[in-house]
């Protein structure tokens, strides 16, 4: 994927390798001069001189691990650290918990520092970008050792670039339908729906039973909710884009994808009064369910405690079921959001890093499932997860979950708003699904193929 080299595009592409001559030497000299001036300035004003170097010659090296907030429960983390430190006598693990906001630039600069973190948890939509830009170690040959044959293929895809494994699947979370049992019962409904048509009928019943509440939605589906929209596309057998040789081809206008988009429009028209200009984040679906503006919403099961906190009367009143598909035998595929684990290319302790990564990716998957209720990376464990009623619907949705095209430029596609715009155009009726899909394809292809 040497797209960024753009061979033949530049009039002259002068590549200075580390071994070349005078120019680089001069630049280095200037850089050092300024750097020492700066260093002097800073040193003069510095008050503390702590040095967190992880190098100890001759002994076991320390380890820096970056985990995202809310992933690994504290007791599990303690166990992992202890096990690693016992196996590496004399070395210490420093776990830095990172917050999600701004994690892209943060991880970028951290991986480019002189002392990058050794093990890094990276969101799975971000991994391809880092793998492709040579920030991470190639772990392809370790796949067997990490139980790679048993991995959920959707998760594995997100960490693989050009056939090389840079991000080891860590965990995923899926969305399910959260529904208010009290409103459900009041409307005279009993069993969870098995098909999308049944769901539409249920939503209509709920809307009728709650006609007194302004803007009430049987199923709350805001216009910009592309994660939900794409679930329909994948659920009817379509996809966002496919690789044809070296180039991506947009597939939103394929017959199957269009079936999905049309089914989505029908569903939303009949089931939801949610504003077409809103995302699923504002207002939060927690607010919608807690305040009773909607009876159902498509969200992650870990939102349930938040809903109960907001409206204590709803304790135990929020149930879950997987978003039903077109037929009764499969659920609508859910987006497999999650994280991968990677080792920094510049890590000073890659052996120790690998040991830690292995613990997170194999031995401690089970506690993650049990305590944090996350979808594990292995299909075997997924089966056992299905037995746990708390995450059974999530597991069902994860079995054939979907993941956007794995490409370093996918972030640019999301930021270009093509998907939310397409959703809004279809749902407000501004464009017919076929036209909206065609226009979307053009943008997606342009962005992914870097033209």
């Amino acid at each position, binding site marked *: 994927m040497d797209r*960024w*080299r*753009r061979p033949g*595009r*530049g*009039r*002259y*592409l*002068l*590549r*200075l*390798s*580390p071994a070349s001559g005078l120019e*680089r030497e001069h630049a280095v000299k200037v850089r050092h001069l*300024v750097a020492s*001036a*700066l260093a002097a*300035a800073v040193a003069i004003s510095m008050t503390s001189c702590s040095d967190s170097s992880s190098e100890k010659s001759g002994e076991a090296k320390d380890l820096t691990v970056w985990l995202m907030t809310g992933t690994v429960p504290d007791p599990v983390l303690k166990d992992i650290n202890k096990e690693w430190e016992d196996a590496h006598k004399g070395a210490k693990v420093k776990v830095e918990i990172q917050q999600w906001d701004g994690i*892209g*630039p943060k991880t*970028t600069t951290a*991986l*480019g520092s002189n002392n990058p973190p050794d093990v890094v948890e990276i969101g799975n939509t971000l991994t391809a*970008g*880092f793998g*492709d*830009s*040579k*920030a991470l170690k190639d772990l392809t040959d370790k796949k067997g050792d990490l139980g790679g044959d048993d991995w959920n293929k959707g998760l594995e895809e997100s960490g693989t670039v050009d056939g090389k494994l840079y991000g080891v699947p860590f965990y995923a979370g899926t969305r399910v339908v959260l529904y208010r049992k009290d409103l459900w019962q009041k409307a005279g409904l009993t069993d969870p729906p098995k098909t999308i048509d049944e769901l539409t009928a249920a939503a209509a019943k709920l809307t009728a039973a709650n006609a007194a509440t302004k*803007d009430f939605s049987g199923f709350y589906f805001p216009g910009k909710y592309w994660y939900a929209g794409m679930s329909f596309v994948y659920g009817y057998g379509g996809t966002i884009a496919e690789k044809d040789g070296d180039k991506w081809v947009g597939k939103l206008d394929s017959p199957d994808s269009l079936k999905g988009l049309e089914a989505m429009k029908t569903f939303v028209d009949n089931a939801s009064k949610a*504003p*077409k*200009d*809103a995302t699923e984040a*504002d*207002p939060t679906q927690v607010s919608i369910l807690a305040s009773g503006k909607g009876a159902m919403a498509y969200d992650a099961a870990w939102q349930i405690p938040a809903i109960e906190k907001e409206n204590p009367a709803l304790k135990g009143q929020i149930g879950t079921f997987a978003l039903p598909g077109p037929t009764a035998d499969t659920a609508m595929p859910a987006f497999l959001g999650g994280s991968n684990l990677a080792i920094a*290319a*510049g890590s000073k302790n890659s052996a120790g890093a690998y040991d830690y990564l292995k613990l997170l990716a194999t031995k401690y998957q089970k506690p993650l499932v049990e305590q944090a209720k996350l979808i594990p990376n292995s299909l075997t464990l997924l089966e056992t997860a299905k037995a746990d009623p708390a995450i059974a619907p999530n597991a069902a949705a994860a079995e054939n979950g979907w993941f956007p095209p794995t490409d370093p*430029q996918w*972030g*640019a596609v999301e*930021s*270009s*708003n093509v998907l*939310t*715009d397409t959703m*809004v155009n279809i749902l*407000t009726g501004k464009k017919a699904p076929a036209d909206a899909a065609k226009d979307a394809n053009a943008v997606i292809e342009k962005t992914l193929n870097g033209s």
Partner: protein
Amino acid sequence: MSAGTVSKERSSRRPSWRQVERITPFALLAPSVILMALLLGYPLARLLGISFQQFTRTEFFTRETIYSGLDNYVDLFTGDFFRVLVRTLIVVVAMVAGTVIIGTAVAVLMDKLGRPMRTLVLVGLLFAWATPPLSATVVWKWMFNSQSGIATWALDVVGVNLRGDNSVLFSATKVLTVVTLIVIWQSIPFVALTLYAGLTQVPRELYEAAEMDGAGFWRSFTSVTVPMLKPIFLLLITLSVIWDFRAFSQVWAFNRGGPDNESLLLGSYSYFASFVQYDFGRGSAVAVVMVLLLFGLTAYYVRQMIRSGEAT
């Protein structure tokens, strides 16, 4: 011999510290020059260099240097660039005009108020100024929310419908109007406070003289206030143009440049290049182009301001 220096001193009309005068400006400037050279100048030089390189995350991690000539610049001008530029210019004119005109009015108001009311206005302005811009944008977005916004409701009462399909978020014009209001709202405090500070320095006697000549409020404003505060006015207008031209976070936080990317402003190129595509070479080229553009827009005023100093 000393004769020469003595006659020099005698012939100058200023006291004998003229020798010192030659050194002092540089001594006074030294701290700022050193600091800015190290922490602004040097990174800027690197930025300029990077703009001529292919510099994506890969080059950042591998620390290679790959020159690509003017590629980054050429890439920039293909596509929507000029349309976005025109859109930005229009929006900036509206923002600057609104800020300066209303800001001046508020400053004059503050000048004429008694102490307690002036403090009230000051506190109001400070609140608007100190609110983090992103939080402010979110609040304004809520106020204009098509289902639950307080401003939407108020406008509904007077007959302006922003609900359903008329939602602010479905029209780039409406989005940019509200964003302009947000920027004006947050920029007025600085303009008002700075002008007010300047107004307090205008000698009272000048106004009294104008009054005795029969000048009303407007006349004394244009013949006393504006000339006295001309340097400050020029500066505020120039700075407003520069800052508003670069403003982007409000547009992004409001509706992410939608609908259909029709409300994107020029600052988006910089943001996209640096934090979405992680194409730092391109981002640097964008920065250079923006500096050149802004310089072109404000060169006349900058020259005026520098010249004005020479009359002293």
